[in-house]
């Protein structure tokens, strides 16, 4: 039976936990790269966070960057950043925070230079204090979200799981932030939404795995070590996890596709990209980060340590690396049958 077929049936026997070092290494690498970039390059923050003024218009007059610069120099805005996009069809000019009349002047001058009516430009102007407030609130929202969610998981399952889940979330957060920093995506309030969505997904995924583990523990705790149960659970949900990621990615992919082709939907595109990366990271972390950490932790509990010793005695092998035992016994456990039917399942 091929791997795919086995996956389809939930019968794979990957030993996730034994291979944890490999996965931790991968994670570690991504995290290191992220942290490095975050400290050195930091973020490209949009004006919503820093304050500033942006005017965007259709470049009817066909002027180039130098032309705009000279026009802007006349009103003292020679330092403004001018971008011509869409193969010369659109112009985007951003500058610092301006007060009321200066803003109107700025917009008027740009509109005139571009050869369009003032009312068909797109203007975005943010005062620095407002921007700072948005930042603060975004960080606040994030912190409270994590705290409440951790509380919920602790209540529904147990606090060790909550902590393991939080670790996975921080992992996802850091990696997503790292990618934004490395690639240089602009961080906008939409990014904050994207990140919170990603965290939501990651959490959702983690909850499903933990839910499975809890169920299996309830059933098998007298017969298997935690690691074995954890492995089994992850194998069982693997298909489901992948399926979920795929179906979640479909609408996001649709957003991405549409965003790339329709003009004015640049925010959608960036949002979709962030989500794409994040959902992938979320699935990865539920299986390769959250659960192994949980397993390592739980195995230090006295009850589980006793199980480890029993398992070692029983099979004479190192606990945790005997997937066959896990699979066999569970088959037995699902239906009312005498335990320990030692039938090799190959």
């Amino acid at each position: 039976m091929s791997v795919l077929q086995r996956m389809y049936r939930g019968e794979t026997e990957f030993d996730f936990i034994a291979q944890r070092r490999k996965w931790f290494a991968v994670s570690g690498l991504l995290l290191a790269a992220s942290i490095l970039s975050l400290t050195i390059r930091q973020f490209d923050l949009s004006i919503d966070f820093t304050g500033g003024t942006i005017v965007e218009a259709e470049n009817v007059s066909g002027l180039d960057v130098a032309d705009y610069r000279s026009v802007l120099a006349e009103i003292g805005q020679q330092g403004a950043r001018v971008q011509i996009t869409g193969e010369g069809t659109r112009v985007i000019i951003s500058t610092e925070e301006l007060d009321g009349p200066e803003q109107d002047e700025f917009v008027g001058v740009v509109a005139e230079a571009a050869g369009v009516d003032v009312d068909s430009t797109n203007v975005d102007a943010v005062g620095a204090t407002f921007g700072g407030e948005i930042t603060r609130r975004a960080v606040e929202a994030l912190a409270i979200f994590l705290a409440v969610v951790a509380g919920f998981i602790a209540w529904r399952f147990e606090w060790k799981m909550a902590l393991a889940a939080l670790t996975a979330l921080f992992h996802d957060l850091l990696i997503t932030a790292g990618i934004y920093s490395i690639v240089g995506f602009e961080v906008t309030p939409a990014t904050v939404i994207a990140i919170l969505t990603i965290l939501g997904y990651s959490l959702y995924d983690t909850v499903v795995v933990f839910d499975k583990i809890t169920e299996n523990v309830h059933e098998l705790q007298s017969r298997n070590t935690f690691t074995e149960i954890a492995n089994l659970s992850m194998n069982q949900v693997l298909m489901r996890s992948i399926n979920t990621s795929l179906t979640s990615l479909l609408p996001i992919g649709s957003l991405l596709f549409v965003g790339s082709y329709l003009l004015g939907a640049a925010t959608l595109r960036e949002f979709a990209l962030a989500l794409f990366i994040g959902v992938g990271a979320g699935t990865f972390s539920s299986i390769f980060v959250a659960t192994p950490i949980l397993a390592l932790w739980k195995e230090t509990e006295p009850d589980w340590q006793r199980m480890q010793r029993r398992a070692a005695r029983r099979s004479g092998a190192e606990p945790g690396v005997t997937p066959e035992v896990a699979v066999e016994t569970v088959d037995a456990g699902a239906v009312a049958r005498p335990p320990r039917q030692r039938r090799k399942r190959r």
Partner: protein
Amino acid sequence: MNRRRLWITVLLTVVISWGALAGVLAAGLSPKLGLDLQGGFSVLLTAPDNTDEAVLETAVDVMRRRIENLGAVQEPEISVIASRGSIQVQLPGVQDRERALEAVGTTGELSFRPVLAIDIISPAFTDGTLTLPTTPDDTAPSTTTTVGDDSTGDETTTTTTTTTTAAPQPPPPNLDPETGLTIVDDPTQAAYLQGEDGLVYHVGPAFLTGSDVAGAEAGFTPGFSSSGYVVDPEFTSDGAVAFEAATAQLSLYAIGDPRRQMAIVVDGTVESAPQIAADVPAGEGLDADQVFITIGTSDNAQTEAEDLATILRYGALPTVFERERVESVSATLGSDSLQAGLAAGIGGLVLVAFAMVAYYRALGIVAVFGLSVFGSLLMLAITLLSEFQGTTLTLAGVTGIIVSIGITADSYIVFFERIKEEFRRGRPLRGAVDHGFQRAFRTIVTADTVTLIGSVLLWILAIGAVKGFAITLGIATVIDVIVAYFFTRPTAMLLVRGPLAKGGFFSIEGAMGKPSGDMAEATA
């Protein structure tokens, strides 16, 4: 499980969701679109620190009045954010941005002016500036027309003799010939203005403006001659001097003469026109530090006093509000974004439906119908919220809808994978579906609760666009649970008891694969 009951549940759910949506659409309701989906203009204005809420509300009233006069704006949304001392203005679909910005960005001018005449209709008609539109005598040449005064009370309105010639005089440029009111009020000139009390005032040029006023308080004075609610205005030092000089002039007139009154004008409307008190000798001015305006002891005197005090404080605001955040979206960008959002949403739905059917086959059909029920309920909820709560649908909201498609699809996957698992463990197909749902439902509720918590938090903590995302996501989560229980469960249970349960690639059994273990006899 009674098959008929299952059918009833399914049909009822479908009929209610599709029917309600159809009904709502037929009634012409549709979600209100936000700025970023239809174009328009929004600005966050800040007033100086310590500006109280009543003053902000007055500012909002003035803005609303002005926007209405502009005409071209549908459904302006102007609200006070008291905690920040700001006013949020949203003008969807506005065409002339500059005029709109001027209308909301500047505060109404406050001026104190001498009253020259008061009448029920504009004194412009009675003092010779304008001729009444319906006077037939206008057409007769060389006829002397005397317009007498028959207005109320003992007003000494001047009576003028008008001689009409063959060519009638054109009305003065800044005067509306129909209403007799000044079109654009310039405080340095005389004007004919509407009063809050319904009368029309002819006022002279201002002797004090808003910059001369420092503030005002409303209070109650239990005096001897004049007790009751009063307003105590505060003037700047320059303003105090000007005030005393002005009142000295006004006190020259007799009691009852409208010219003894001082009009308090805000933004071209006469808010109040108190008279100099009777006990002030002619030619003597009022001390600005001690002056107060008596409102009286009538039932609504307290409100009147507070309103007037607020008006004065409003007038003392700087002429221009500070703009904290401006967003101007052209109509094309708005409609482009809307199209993009719709296309992405439909595309996403189609792809997901496809994937479900391809992978889960017969059960996938359940998912497809379930998605349509989910979609209907979601649109219904958003439309109703728009209608009754005024919630607008923004691009962030559309994104929330699209993300929620993924979440609801996931609920189906949880359920179907659970069925698969139960089936492979040896449970009979029917039992796998029935029992599988129970277990899967718990997982669905847990996961949806987490998302719901996230949405609620986001909604509480966020400003602007992010709120829209939180709302749609939160609603979608709740609807997902409802649909799972009232639609997916009975439909799946019916399906497994029907012809599509076994036999063939497309059937449920086909999708689940062969069961494993000894209890392989998966007979229903």
